[in-house]
């Protein structure tokens, strides 16, 4: 079976990636697993300036999920270049740089400055981080803005450009279509859901920033519904994520119309999850005699 996934000008060796913010830049996990089997490593978000991130605690468990409020903590562009690029050059799997910011210029700056780096396979544009105050709603909630930003970024690099969608919108298909019109090579969804937990003993929200992003098994059905709808609204590939902890979940995403998937929170729980998911996808393909990833899309209308 051909496991490869074509996205724009690039090809991923297999459909199972690891999600931004849950896998660092790879080095953190290299002692635990073989990075060469990873289909795509989506880095922690990179912003133009360094960001210390939010106050603590930054993580709290919820029923079958977790809330995080990391706040795009990263070393900034300069730090990324000196501290991370040399490592990415040695990485045995494709590296997708997750790009973030509070305004369009931020995104443009990151891609412009990194566009020449051969060790970067492509971009994932995080328009949806609910942790950073961009004056209210996330950038990725308005189709017009998304289309404009996408076409601006499109001109800066010929590497695969993936727009990451937030589920916290009325109509995620409208945002996906805007990304497609703007020239995106793919969309990935979903980012975290806005959530909150209150400590009734301390009488305050657990997260100092009050709300955070909900991820993990709890959101699997939400991610699946989003991918199902988005895959029917655009013709570019869809990268599905949200709540995947086992092969069956990843297969659900592929059946729903995804061309690739990402594993996020589950990396924290089982470092071998990636291998298990990849094996499970292959076994499913053999069982149903599927030759390539698009063959997964034939079953569900």
């Amino acid at each position, binding site marked *: 079976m051909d496991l490869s996934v074509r996205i724009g000008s690039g090809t991923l060796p297999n459909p199972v990636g690891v999600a931004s913010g849950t896998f660092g830049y790879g080095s953190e996990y290299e002692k635990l697993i073989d990075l060469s089997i990873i289909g795509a490593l989506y880095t922690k978000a990179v912003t133009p300036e360094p960001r210390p991130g939010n106050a603590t605690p930054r993580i709290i468990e919820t029923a079958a999920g977790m809330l995080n409020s*990391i706040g795009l903590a990263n070393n900034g562009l300069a730090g990324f270049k000196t501290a991370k690029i040399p490592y990415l050059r040695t990485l045995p799997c494709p590296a997708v740089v997750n790009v973030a910011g509070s305004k369009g210029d931020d995104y443009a700056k990151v891609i412009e400055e990194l566009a020449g780096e051969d060790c970067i396979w492509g971009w994932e544009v995080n328009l949806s981080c609910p942790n950073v105050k961009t004056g209210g709603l996330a950038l990725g909630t308005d189709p017009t803005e998304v289309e404009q930003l996408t076409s601006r970024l499109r001109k800066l690099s010929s590497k695969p450009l993936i727009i990451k969608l937030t589920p916290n919108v009325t109509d995620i298909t409208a945002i996906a279509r805007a990304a497609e019109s703007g020239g995106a090579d793919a969309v990935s969804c979903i980012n975290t859901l806005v959530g909150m937990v209150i400590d009734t003993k301390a009488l305050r929200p657990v997260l100092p920033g009050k709300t955070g992003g909900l991820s993990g*098994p709890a959101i699997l059905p939400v991610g699946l519904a989003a991918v199902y709808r988005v895959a029917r609204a655009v013709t570019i590939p869809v990268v599905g994520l949200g709540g995947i902890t086992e092969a069956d979940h990843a297969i659900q995403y592929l059946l729903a119309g995804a061309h690739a998937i990402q594993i996020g929170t589950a990396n924290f729980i089982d470092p071998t999850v990636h291998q298990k998911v990849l094996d499970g996808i292959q076994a499913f393909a053999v069982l149903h005699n599927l030759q390539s990833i698009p063959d997964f899309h034939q079953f569900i209308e």
Partner: protein
Amino acid sequence: MAHIVTSVLENRPVAQDYYELRMAWPSWAPAPQPGQFLTLRTVDGPVPLLRRPFAFSGFDRADSAASIIYQRRGHATTLMTAKRPFDPFDILAPLGNGFPDPKSGRRPILIAGGIGMGPMLFLAERLAQTPYPGILIIGARSAQYLPRVVLSRSVQTILCTDDGSAGRKGTAVDIAREEIRQEGCAPELYLCGPHGMLAAGHALAEELDAPSWVAMEQTMGCAVGACMGCVVRVHGGEEYARVCMEGPVFDSRTIIWT
């Protein structure tokens, strides 16, 4: 650091709400050092979801066994109390940096409170085998929280309680201050316990101009340095340091105590 699926050897109560869990230690796995920790998974399903971190309280290469001491608090630790010998035990370990050796000529003073007792017992046993053994001071709210059964005869130990129901009356840091004054030694402090105790220990170290090491706690996601979830505020260039990577043991002067 390794992903180890080992088995439980023993899981016994050692004080009220406190348990010691011993696990088999495979020969290929790196040896845990005092101050290092593991993260464990209690169930296969999605609740509790995240791995839970626990400091090593002992390691015996000869017996091929490592141990932790844990307090029953919420869902995961309650499930842990049901673990039986030969139950599989899924851990990532050893994680974090561990305690440094004392500086030459310094007397190690080990101060433990509550769930901080595990790593201090481990460190105390280690130091007892060196030319610079320490004093271990264990503080608890009252008598029933003192883990008498796990204390080692080879370690000089002082027990104290807030209510005076056992050992000396007072906080572990207060007793440490008294001991140091009495011994007239140049101390090096090692602390693990509640945040307030660590801050008081740091203040004592400043007072005495002594080096001091604190094992910090923070809610964790990955525990391998990837998620930036477990940070504490530190002085210096970076505003935050990760407990799971730069810690859990920090020079108390690098921490921003608030």
